C-alpha cells in the first residue's frame, strides 16, 4: 500500500498548482478553476488522513469530503454566476480591469 506521504505530496502539489493558478491568472474563470484545484487538494488530504486513521471503519473523512464537494459545487455555481454578472456589467473577465473596490 502506498504510504500516506505519497497522497499528501500529491495533494500538496495540486494545492500549489491551484494557488499559483489563482494568483497568477488574470481571467476570473481560470482563477475559479485554481480555487477548485485547491479545494480538491484539501479533499484529497481529508480522505487520505481518514484512510490511514486508527478507525477507518467510521466514515468520517469520507463525510467531510462529500460535504466539501457539495459546498464547492455550490460555491462554483455562485462564483460562475458572479463572473457572468461581472462580465455583463464590465464587458470583461480580466480581474486587473475590475478594481473599482479600491480604497
Amino acid at each position, binding site marked *: 500500500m502506498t504510504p500516506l506521504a505519497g497522497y499528501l505530496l500529491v495533494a500538496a502539489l495540486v494545492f500549489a498548482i491551484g*494557488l499559483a493558478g489563482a*494568483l497568477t491568472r488574470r481571467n476570473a474563470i481560470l482563477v475559479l478553476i485554481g480555487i477548485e484545484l485547491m479545494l480538491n487538494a484539501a479533499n484529497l488530504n481529508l480522505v487520505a488522513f481518514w484512510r490511514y486513521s486508527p478507525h477507518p471503519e467510521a466514515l468520517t473523512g469520507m463525510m467531510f469530503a462529500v460535504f466539501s464537494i457539495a459546498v464547492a459545487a455550490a460555491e462554483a455555481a455562485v462564483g460562475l454566476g458572479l463572473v457572468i454578472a461581472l462580465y455583463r456589467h464590465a464587458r470583461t473577465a480580466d480581474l486587473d480591469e475590475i*478594481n473599482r473596490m479600491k480604497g
Partner: protein
Amino acid sequence: MQEVQEAIQFSPYAVASWIGRILWLIPALPMVAAGIIALLKQPKRKLASSLAIGSLFLSLLLSLAAFADVLAGWASGHAVRETVNFAWLTFGATPVELGWILDPLAAVMLVMVTFVGLLIFIYSTGYMAHDENYTRFFCFLSLFAGAMLGVVIANSLLLLFMCWELVGLTSYLLIGFWYQKPSAAAAAKKAFLTTRVGDIFFLLGIVWLFAQTGTLLFYSQGAGNMEPTALAGMLASPAALGLSAATAIGLLIFAGAAGKSGQLPLHVWLPDAMEGPTPVSALIHAATMVAAGVYLIARVYPLMAAGVQPGGTTTALTVVTWVGACTAVFAALIAVAQNDIKRILAYSTVSQLGYMMAGLGLGGVAVGMFHLITHAFFKALLFMGAGSVIHGCHEEQDIRHMGGLSKTMRVTFLAYLAGMLALTGFPLVFSGFWSKDAILESAHQWKAGQGPYFLLVFGALLTAFYMTRQMGYVFSGNYRGHGDAHESPRVMTMPLVILAFFAIALGGLGTPLWPWFRSFLLDRPASFGLTGFHEPGLLVLMLTSTAVVAIGYGIGWALYVGKSPAASEPDALESKIGPVWTALSHRLYVDELYGVTVIAFYYWWAGVADWLDRRVWGGMVGAVTWFFGLWAKFNRFLDETFVNGGFDKGCEELSIGGGLLARVQSGRVQTYLRLLALAVVVLAAILIWSSRG
C-alpha cells in the same frame, strides 16, 4: 388696594352720608374719561371732547350734591366733616392709610374746580377746534381735572401728594402741548423742575410728619395729624434753631405749596408756563392748580397755626404772610412792564396768589380761601378773554399790536372789563373788592407789624395800574395788528359771560353785610346785618382801598387809554422811569440771577460729575477691562498653541495612517488573495515552528 379696613369711619359730628361714601367718584370720573380718550383714535374728536365734558359734568353734579349735603348739615347746626379711610399698604404693623374727606373747605373747592373746569372744557372745544392733537388735549385736560379733584378730596397727605404730583405731570404735559415749539418744551421742563424743588421739601415734611405722628391722615376720629393730640405732640417736640417740629414741618409743607403756587423765590416757572394753550393757562395756571398750594396750606392750617394764642401768630404763619406779601408786590411790579397779554396775567396770578397766601397767614382759612374762589372765577375769565382776544387778533399776543378791540369784540370786551374790575377790586360791586378787602382788613389788624399791610396796599395800586394799562393797549385807540380783528365764536364767548356773572355775584357771599362764606368755612351761623361794618377802622379801610385803586386807574388812564402808540415807540412810562423800567421789563433779572447762581453751579457740578465719571470711575472700569483683556489674550495663546496644536497633530497622524491603509485596498482581487496566501503561509510556518518547539 388692600382690603378695606373699617370702610367707613364716622366723624365726631356726622355719619358719612351717601355722597360722602361715593365722593371718590368725583375725581375718578374724569380720570376714567382720560383713560378712554387715551385709547381713542385721533379722528374721534367729537367723542373725546364729549367724554371729557360729560364726565366733568357728572362730577359737577356730584360736587353740587356734596355741597348741598355739607350745606344742609351746616344749616342744621351740625358741622359736617365726613371722612372715609382705608388701609392702603401695611409695613409690618404700620398701616399707610388713604382716605377722602368732605367738609366745607373741600365742598367749596369741589364746586369751584368742577364748575370753572367745565366752562373751560367747553371753551376749549372752540379754542382748540383747529388743532390736530385735539383728543390728546382733552385726554390731558381730563386727567388734570381728575388729579386736581383728587387733591381736593384727599384726607391723607400721601393721597394728596400723589394727586399733587399727577397735577404737576399734567401741567408739564399741557405747557409742553405744542412741543414742536422749543420755547414751549423749555417752559414745560422749567415748570416741572422748579416745582420739583418745592416738592422735595414737601416730601421731607410728609416723611417727618409721619415719623412724628405715625399717620398721614388729616382727620381720623381724633387720631389724625391735624387733630389736637398729634398737634400737641409735634409742638412739644423740638427741632433745630428753637423751632418746634410742628413749625418746621409746616415750613417744609409751605415750601411745596410755594413751588406749586408760584411764590417767591420759586415763581419763575409760572410766567413761562403761558407757552401752553390759553385754556390750559386759564384752568391750570390761574384757577385751579396754582391754587392747590393755597388749598394745601388751608388744609394743614391747624398745623401752621398750632399753638397760636388769641390775636397772635405763629412762626409758620408769619413766614407765609411775608412770603405772600412780598410775592404780591414783586410780581405786580414786574407785570407793569410786560407786553405779552398772557404774561401780564401770569404775573398778576403770581401776585394774587401772594395775596391768598398772605390772607391765609393773616386772617386764616376763610380769608385766603375766599380770595382763592373769587380769583379762580375772575382770573379764568381774564385768561379766557385773553384767549378770545388772541384768537380774534390772529394769534397775536403782544398788546402793542392790538388796540381798539372794544369796537370789534363787544362781548369779549365787556366780559374782560368785568374780570379786570373784579381783579383790581372795583368798590362794592365786584367780588375781588370784598375778597381783597378782607385780606387788607386782616393785615391792618395784624399784631406782628404793619409791613404786610403796606405791601398789600401798594400791590393793589399796582394791580389797578397794570390792568388799566393792559386794557388801554388792547381795547382803546386804533387797531394796530395785522388783518382784521373779529369776535370769537359763541362757544368761546358764552363761558366768558357766565364767568363774568360770577365774577360780580360771588362778592355777595363775603361782604361784611352778610359774611356767609367765612361763617360757612369756620362753621359758625351766618348773620345778616350791619354789625359787620362796626368793626373798628373797616370803613376807613374800604375808603383807603377805594382811593388806592382809583389812583391806579387814574394813572393808567392818563398814560395809556386812547393813545394808540406804535409798537416801536417806547412805553409811556418808560420815558419817565427809564432804568427802572428796563429792570422791570427784564423781570427784575430773577431768571438771570438763577442763571448765574443755581444753574451755573449746577452746570459746574455736572462738569465735576462728568470729570469724575470719565476719569475716576471710567478709569477704574478701564483698568479692570484692560486686565481682563490681557487675561483673555493669554487664554487665547494657550488655546491656539497647545490645545489646538495637539488636536491638529493627532488628526494629521490619523490622516496619514488612513492614507496608508487606503493604499492596501487596491480593489484587485488577486492582491487580496495574495495577502491571504501569504497569511496562510505565515500561519503554517508558525504552526510548524511552534509544534516543533
